[in-house]
């Protein structure tokens, strides 16, 4: 099933791989260096700031600060970090699509980013609607705490799998058996 789904998206990666601008980035002497360096620096900004938001929700830090104050104070910087981080990440894939396509850790990371997006959307659309009732409480309601813990755990997962993307050979045998390339 997974192999079938990945084979479905292979033409997209091969198509992007054929773009002259993708080739230009791929053959650029320092293009990848700039992208990866900016990706790591902006990761510190994104994960560092979102960590404090999540820890406030989970009741692990800054329990004395109203939740809305933490959000309004930190999120403008988070948005800047997300734009740079996602932009450089997309460009890294754009420049070497056929390097990332068969990479187990890349897809693992993407799956966790999807879970993080769903978690954030659920928090924003459901749990945050009642924030005015509990934003001054040192300990947030169970659902908000759970959203914070989930986000923390999956962000650690994103960082770990992002680092392991460089180790494309250290993967389970069943992944190699898919024969993605």
């Amino acid at each position, binding site marked *: 099933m997974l192999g079938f789904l990945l084979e479905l998206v292979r033409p997209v990666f091969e198509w992007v791989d054929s773009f002259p601008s993708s080739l230009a980035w791929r053959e650029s002497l320092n293009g*990848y*260096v700039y992208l*990866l*360096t900016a990706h*790591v*620096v902006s*990761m*510190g*900004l994104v*994960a*560092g*700031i979102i*960590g*404090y938001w999540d820890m406030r929700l989970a009741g692990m*830090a*800054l329990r*004395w*600060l*109203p939740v809305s*104050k*933490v959000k309004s*104070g*930190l999120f403008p*910087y988070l948005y800047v970090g997300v734009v740079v981080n996602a932009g450089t990440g997309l460009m890294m894939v754009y420049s070497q699509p056929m390097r990332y396509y068969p990479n187990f850790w890349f897809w693992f990371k993407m799956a966790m980013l999807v879970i993080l997006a769903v978690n954030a959307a659920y928090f924003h659309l459901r749990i945050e609607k009642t924030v005015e009732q509990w934003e001054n409480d040192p300990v947030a309601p169970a659902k908000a705490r759970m959203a914070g813990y989930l986000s923390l755990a999956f*962000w*650690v997962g994103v*960082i*770990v799998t*992002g*680092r*392991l993307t460089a*180790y494309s050979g*250290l993967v389970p045998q069943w992944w190699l058996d898919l024969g993605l390339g």
Partner: protein
Amino acid sequence: MLQSFFQWMQGLSLSAYFLESVWPTPIIQCIHLVAVAVFAGAVLVVDLRLLGSGLKSASIPRLAGAVQPWLIGSFTVLVLTGIPQMTSTALKQYYSPFFWWKMEALFIGVIVTFVIRRIITSKEEGHFGPVWPKVVGITSIALWTSVTIGARLIGLLS
């Protein structure tokens, strides 16, 4: 003399273990990177506050005190996980200009963050005037960004 020290580090059994084993190096690198994120957050929330932004409703001493355990804890993990990474590739590091760039920025960063900023954040806003907290905040951000860039370039360009 410094070169012999790096040669000695390269020859340690710890270095050989990390070079010859498959998983220890990536595991240590992953822990190091997670600690980078925790450290970056602990540095940033206080530096942004010193710049008059971020968590403006929190008093500077209280905010700095609240993040201090995360700052110290993540820095300790960074050092502990950085040592085996450095010893196992000691000679590569020695000949890399980016390693020395990182070490210089790290040395100044430690002084700025753990000594000078500690003094600045021990007093309420206004005690040191409007300029010095901002100078310390922007210097701290610049130094730790520089450490991160230097560290990444060791692996990419050395």
